């Protein structure tokens, strides 16, 4: 199925859970946060939350970035 991940179209297997997605991307769970269709997915929901066709996901983490305003 097709989803939007971090702003980019991506094809992923059906019935994929959030945890499945993260593992397929081999992203360590700690220190990331996931937003599914503008709703935050709690860590304890990663395993039970299934991604649907057309869903939009954001997976974010901490990056270099400074004092005020410095993106």
């Amino acid at each position, binding site marked *: 199925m097709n989803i939007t991940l971090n702003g980019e179209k991506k094809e992923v297997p059906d019935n994929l859970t959030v945890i499945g997605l993260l593992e397929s991307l081999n992203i360590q769970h700690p220190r990331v946060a996931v937003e599914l269709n503008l709703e935050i997915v709690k860590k304890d929901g990663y395993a039970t939350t299934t991604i649907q066709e057309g869903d939009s996901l954001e997976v*974010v983490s901490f990056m270099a970035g400074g004092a005020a305003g410095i993106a």
Partner: protein
Amino acid sequence: MTDDKLIIAEIEFKSRLWVGTGKYKDFAETKRAIEASGTDVVTVSVRRVNIIDKSKENLLDYIDPKKYKILPNTAGCFTAKDAIRTAMLAAEAGITKLVKLEVIGDEKTLFPDNEATLEAAKVLVKEGLIVLPYVSDDPIMARKLVEIGCPAVMPLAAPIGSGLGIRNPYNLRIIMETVKVPIIVDAGVGTASDVAFAMELGCDAVLLNTAIAGAKDPIAMAEAMKYGVLGGRLAYKAGRIPKKLYATASSPIEGMIGS
């Protein structure tokens, strides 16, 4: 001054110099600068994980969250909505409830949008975050932010990255008279004497990034800033001599700030 602790929302901060992680050559330089600065508070941005390039290193492999307090910021947000979303995601990432809230009002000067910042702060405080807001040096806005539950306020000294230093010590003084929470000067300082002066004014801490990362020798400047904060804080506590036109003048010049 082992008893001179900075405590915000029951969190104890060892250092009064807080630093950013932007604009460095690489993570190795970032790490060395942070170590040289002697800080225990590092602010980081919240960004999309790089999906394509998995090899890409992670900042937190260099800055150990066990060793440093991580202060996520909402840098780059131009609306309350985006700042709220970013701050909530930062909290969900599970390292800290602290957030340095920024809502930028102008891309050119990076001045904060005070109104939108207040609006976002209201929501985030309700959500249980510890909100440290970046604002202009406006005593009224500082009071409103404290009234809605911000445990500290972070007024700018001067525009971000300008290096101008404390442009309006008078407003900082008035803010300190108006609210009784820690004041952390955020952005605008350029050199060691600027941070020393901020501390001498009675500010509780200084957060900076460009002044270190943009210096010709960031590691040396990081160390310089460490000493600037230590010296300024000690001088503030030590109680300086009054200013006089000359030593035998009868009355002190009381306009210590800015004069």
